[in-house]
């Protein structure tokens, strides 16, 4: 065996193991979710389903509160995304494109709020929401999720905003363009991949948030997917087919988004860290 071949073989095997380690569990819940109840609980697990049924999905969509959870999660995620994009893009433009005293300190404060452990806010946040009469509302979740995602979003935007040459702005200003005009017509289109990646980040953050949702939401009708699913697996007797269908359906929107803009997203994630 030549060294080159051996290198490729080792690389191929380790790559396969790595990706299987991450992706195989997802295949497993998906393939199990389309098996018949008998096959799911059979003592010998089957890699490829022997039976095929959509009964778990049928139950999920027609006989459970899943559609309500899905709707709530979507509403919260879209609200979080919109506010995060506006607040973070404005702040990022200010921090990375304008020069003013105290800029670096503000940048650091935003970074600190990102690393700030949310669990320390749990009790006072609940108290604040109850004073504002927002407990058990989707608005309360949007407020919390924006706080959790906006600081990191600003950080992610750093790399995207810094790559745009300053001369572009100066040239536009020379031609009489206003600041707002420059932002809307020059900066935003150029920073579009960055804005897309923070939008996805905010969506995912909101889609996965459990800690605050579990205490701020009380009624069944306002539950989001993580809280709703947690309620289902918290029951004594777990109907696995149903739960696995729920997990698959919850993962699906993330897969779609990720398939569309995953590249920008990963770029944005790493850009902040390595500059």
């Amino acid at each position, binding site marked *: 065996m030549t060294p080159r071949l051996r290198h490729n073989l080792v*690389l*191929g095997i*380790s*790559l396969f193991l*790595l*990706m299987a380690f991450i*992706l195989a*569990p*997802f295949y*497993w*819940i998906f393939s199990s979710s389309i098996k018949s109840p008998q096959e799911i*609980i059979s*003592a010998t*697990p089957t890699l490829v389903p022997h039976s095929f049924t959509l009964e778990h999905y049928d139950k999920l969509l027609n006989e459970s509160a899943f559609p309500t959870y899905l709707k709530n999660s979507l509403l919260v995620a879209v609200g979080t995304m919109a506010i995060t994009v506006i*607040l973070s893009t*404005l*702040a990022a*433009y*200010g921090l990375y494109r*304008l*020069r*003013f005293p105290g*800029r*670096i300190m503000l940048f650091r404060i935003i970074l600190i709020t*990102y*690393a*700030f*452990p*949310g*669990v*320390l*806010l*749990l*009790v*006072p946040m*609940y*108290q*604040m929401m109850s004073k504002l009469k927002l407990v058990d509302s989707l608005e309360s979740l949007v407020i919390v999720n924006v706080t959790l995602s*906006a*600081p990191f979003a*600003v950080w992610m935007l750093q790399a995207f905003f810094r790559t745009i040459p300053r001369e572009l702005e100066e040239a536009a200003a*020379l031609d009489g363009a206003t600041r707002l005009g420059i932002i809307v017509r020059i900066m935003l289109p150029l920073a579009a991949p960055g804005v897309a990646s923070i939008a996805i980040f905010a969506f995912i953050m909101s889609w*996965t948030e*459990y*800690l605050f949702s579990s205490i701020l939401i009380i009624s069944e009708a306002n539950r989001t997917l*993580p809280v709703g*699913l*947690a309620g289902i*697996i918290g029951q004594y007797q777990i109907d696995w087919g149903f*739960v*696995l269908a729920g*997990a698959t359906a*919850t993962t699906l929107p993330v897969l779609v988004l*990720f398939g569309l803009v995953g590249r920008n997203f990963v770029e944005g*994630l*790493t*850009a902040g*860290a*390595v*500059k």
Partner: protein
Amino acid sequence: MREITHDEAPVRRRSNWRAEWFRTETLMGYAFVLPLMLWLAGTILYPLIASVDLSLQNIKIIGSPGEYVGLENYQRALESPDFRDALKNSGVWVVANAVIQTVLAFGAAVILKQRFKGNGIARIWIILSWVVPTVVVVIIWRWLLSASGGVVNYLLVNLGLADKPVGFFSTGNMAFFTVIMINSWRWFPFNAVILLAGLQRIPEELYEAASVDGATTLKKLRYITLPSLQPVLFVMGLIGTLLSFNVFDVIWLLTAGGPSGATTTLPVLIYETAFKRYRLSQAAAMSVITGVILLVFAAIFIRFMSPAADAEED
């Protein structure tokens, strides 16, 4: 006003807009950052101050009246074995997660850095475990590790690695180890893509030059890779530790802190105290103490681990 000659005109116009531009720049800068700062002040700073206030009272359930009791809640927290156990568990949690995730992430980053077909796709989908909701992660692993019908136990028994199905959550140590592994599975790909980005920024020529000089792989790691990665490792070490400390849902949904408190870290204890035992003020005191501990950690970390050259730009 004298007439502007042709030579002067453009220069003059240019300096005018420049002056105007810079005069408004400071004002605009604050105006752009202000909305976010106000938002964060309202949702982080204000609650933080409110939690100190709350911790000095004896409120049990929100809405019920309380009176100021001084530092009683702090004293009770510091004296309670529950709090000390949770602090210890949090310490174990953070260190174990850091070690396991760093090893896995480094391995993954080295593999992904190689040239192969489809590496662009692999580099994106590797973080799937990090982007799905924790509750999905929990469902996946409860299903895979289930004692009856779980595929992991099926494989372990049939490959002769275990005589009978392993109870992954049955004893305290086993449950803690399992939850740490599951959390590491969720987080290591995220660390891997960050490390990968750091590795890709190291110029290939450095390694080539070192090879010419006869450096071993270990020497290259020690003198090229690690020093170049220092800024990335610093950020990962600081922010990663704080984020890992903050992890609540994966523990809560897998073990609810059990069996008998073995997996109760500080976030779990705070949650339990506030919303299961209804001791809101007590939980606020625990949050404040925890905040101080983390602050001290961050200060020490920054003091001793900061990369030599400040990475901050201009």
